[in-house]
């Protein structure tokens, strides 16, 4: 009898083991995978992302155009998303396409040979005039390209058109005009500029003020060639402090979204990337009547060109993914003018493809304006330009500075300590 029981127990164990094995085995085979570089692959592409954008709607466009649909998996939590993607490289679940960040975070993946190279895609796109060659720099590591852009967004200032009209303020073209506008708005009890502490937006005004004052210093700081305690950086922080003390910023501790603050008439201007247009529209604020945009003027006009921050949302293909060919085919398509026109129409933003059509007149004008490379110079947003450990510390320190405005030295020293430790190892 005991043998029978032992047998039953063994069977139970075997069943449990099989169940566990089933759980860890590869899931369903993809409905279609790449069928080789020689033929155009079609099928459904797994797309892991951290964006709240409507990729299912966009999937219909690509399905009709090139026969590839998207099966998006969206992570609402950025940290959970990063942890998942990193862990997925160790399994056979490496995604065929996933969103990521340029700068140090992309270098980290490339350093481990985890991302598929996209140099041929870039060569072809640039040869056909589908993408500005300056964008390629953001995707270049050791002379090769990795990932492709979903969008490239310029940072502009969104403003409340009705409020500006009410107080007879014209969109400023110089820093002095912008400060004058801020003084007028403040005198009417309105917070001129949006400001927010914490992760991720605590860097915004440091970026605007530093790059607007000395773009080379900004770049040197990002690459560890300059110190955060440099007197020039301290001077920039004191400019920030001056604006704080004049009451030009909204409450950095507020949990009310900036578009809601603008909608309720408490806030006049919000500095953000061109992707923010769709958020304003979702909040019920209409382009052209409720809000407009202007390029953020340089603090120091002697720099010559006005610096414009850019950020880009890359789509990357895992080097060892089963869907690598399908992912690369989709990446190539997403850069085309058809795809970018459709994407701009869906998102209401500015397409990076010069041949693509911006969906709104506002962004058509901005696009034309920023295309003048004699007047504007783009630079990578602080969030991507700064190595992650330094960035995390900087966001904390900037938040401390915003919460208790005063002598910036201790906050800058805090960032410099982390930067020094990081650059000593890299």
């Amino acid at each position, binding site marked *: 009898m005991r043998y029978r*029981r*032992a047998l039953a127990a063994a069977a139970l164990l075997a069943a449990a083991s099989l169940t566990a094995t089933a759980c860890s085995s590869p899931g369903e085979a993809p409905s279609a995978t790449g069928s080789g570089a020689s033929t155009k692959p079609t099928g459904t592409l797994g797309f892991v992302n951290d964006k709240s954008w409507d990729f299912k709607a966009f999937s219909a466009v690509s399905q009709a155009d090139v026969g590839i649909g998207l099966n998006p998996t969206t992570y609402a939590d950025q*940290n959970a998303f990063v942890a998942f993607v*990193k862990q997925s490289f160790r399994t056979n679940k490496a995604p065929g396409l996933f969103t990521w960040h340029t700068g140090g975070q992309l270098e980290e993946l490339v350093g481990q040979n*985890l991302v598929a190279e996209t140099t041929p895609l870039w060569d072809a796109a640039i040869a056909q005039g589908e993408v500005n060659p300056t964008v390629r720099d953001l995707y270049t590591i050791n002379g090769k390209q990795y990932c492709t852009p979903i969008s490239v967004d310029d940072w502009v200032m969104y403003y409340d058109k009705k409020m500006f009209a009410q107080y007879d303020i014209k969109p400023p073209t110089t820093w002095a005009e912008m400060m004058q506008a801020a003084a007028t708005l403040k005198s009417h009890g309105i917070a001129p500029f949006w400001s927010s502490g914490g992760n991720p937006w605590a860097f915004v005004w440091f970026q605007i003020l530093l790059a607007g004052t000395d773009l080379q210093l900004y770049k040197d700081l990002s690459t560890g060639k300059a110190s955060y305690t440099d007197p020039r950086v301290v001077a920039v922080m004191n400019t920030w402090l001056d604006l704080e003390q004049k009451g030009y910023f909204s409450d950095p501790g507020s949990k009310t979204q900036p578009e809601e603050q603008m909608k309720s008439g408490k806030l006049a201007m919000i500095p953000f990337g061109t992707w923010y247009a769709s958020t304003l529209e979702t909040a019920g604020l209409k382009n052209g009547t409720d809000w407009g945009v202007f390029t953020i003027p340089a603090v120091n006009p002697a720099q010559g060109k006005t610096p414009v921050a850019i950020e880009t949302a890359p789509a990357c293909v895992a080097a060892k993914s089963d869907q690598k060919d399908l992912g690369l085919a989709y990446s190539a398509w997403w850069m085309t003018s058809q795809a970018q026109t459709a994407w701009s129409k869906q998102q209401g933003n500015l397409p990076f493809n010069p041949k693509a059509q911006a969906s709104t007149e506002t962004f058509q004008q901005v696009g034309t304006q920023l295309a003048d490379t004699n007047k504007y110079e783009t630079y990578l947003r602080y969030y991507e330009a700064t190595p992650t450990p330094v960035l995390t510390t900087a966001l904390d320190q900037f938040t*401390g500075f915003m*919460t208790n405005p005063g002598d910036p030295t201790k906050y800058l020293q805090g960032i410099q300590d982390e930067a020094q430790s990081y650059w000593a190892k890299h």
Partner: protein
Amino acid sequence: MAVTSHPSRPAAAPPATAPRDPRPVRRRPPTSYQGAAWAFMAPGTVLVVLALYLPVVYTVYLSFTDYTGLGSPNLVGFANYGEMFRDTAFLTAITNTLIWVVGSLVVPVGVGLLVAYLSFGLRLASWLRIPFLVPYALSGVAVGVVFSFVLQNDGALSQALAFLHLPGSETRWLQEAPLNTIVMILAASWQGIGVNALLFTVGLQSIPREPLEAARVDGASGWRLFRHMVWPLLRPSTTIVVGLSIVNSLKTFDIVQAMTQGGPNRVSETLGVSMYRDTFVNSEYGLGSAVALFLTVITLGASMLYLRRQLAVGEPKGARA
């Protein structure tokens, strides 16, 4: 499970006159069930080892490496532990965690006891306790999100104070340390009082009536009755409630993450939040693992010290070798 023959059922005694069976009787040794028992326990044991023990061992290993989530971990000795103790924010996190431990004992446990004692024996007492118990159904994150809107600058509390012309409407509840930690403890207390009151109520119900009546006959009442009779007799419940409170407050994470993310500038961070930040925000898995181990050792140490002391007090003299 169909039982056709029970292995432990004794065989019917043979009649005294029956001829003796010449075959030797195989007597089952007392440990003969061990094999079968282990076979049945194996799936559970395997699961526990895989899901609980191996991750602990792996975390210990990671704490001695420079793992970033990519590539292979490299051993770095005690570097993570050195870095951890040199970080002033980590020392702030220890202080904040201790404030959480003390605060969670004073407010949710203290008020829970008060609610239980004052309502005990009253008519409709269970109805009185229900409002305290309802928030326990919420998750810590939900409580954090709700209270962050109440306590943010110009939030519901500030607006209410301004409306009533009371002082404090300009107070930055979540931005000044240690005020932000204190208000978060109060928010957590809003949720925790009810369940503590419930546990104390069960404890009060289990106290025998005779000694209390004897004490009343002897003239004890009010505070003296509570101090010298109820409180000692309530010790089993107090041990459990205080023990749980210490463990839960040491690993405080969800409500802080939801309300301040440990900020501004890490001033409200607890050890749980430090662990999360190092591991998942900065991708410094080695450092995060070191913090996790430190937290585990502290929690286990505190629990063992407290419980050993409490349980030893409850045991009769000479019961332990």
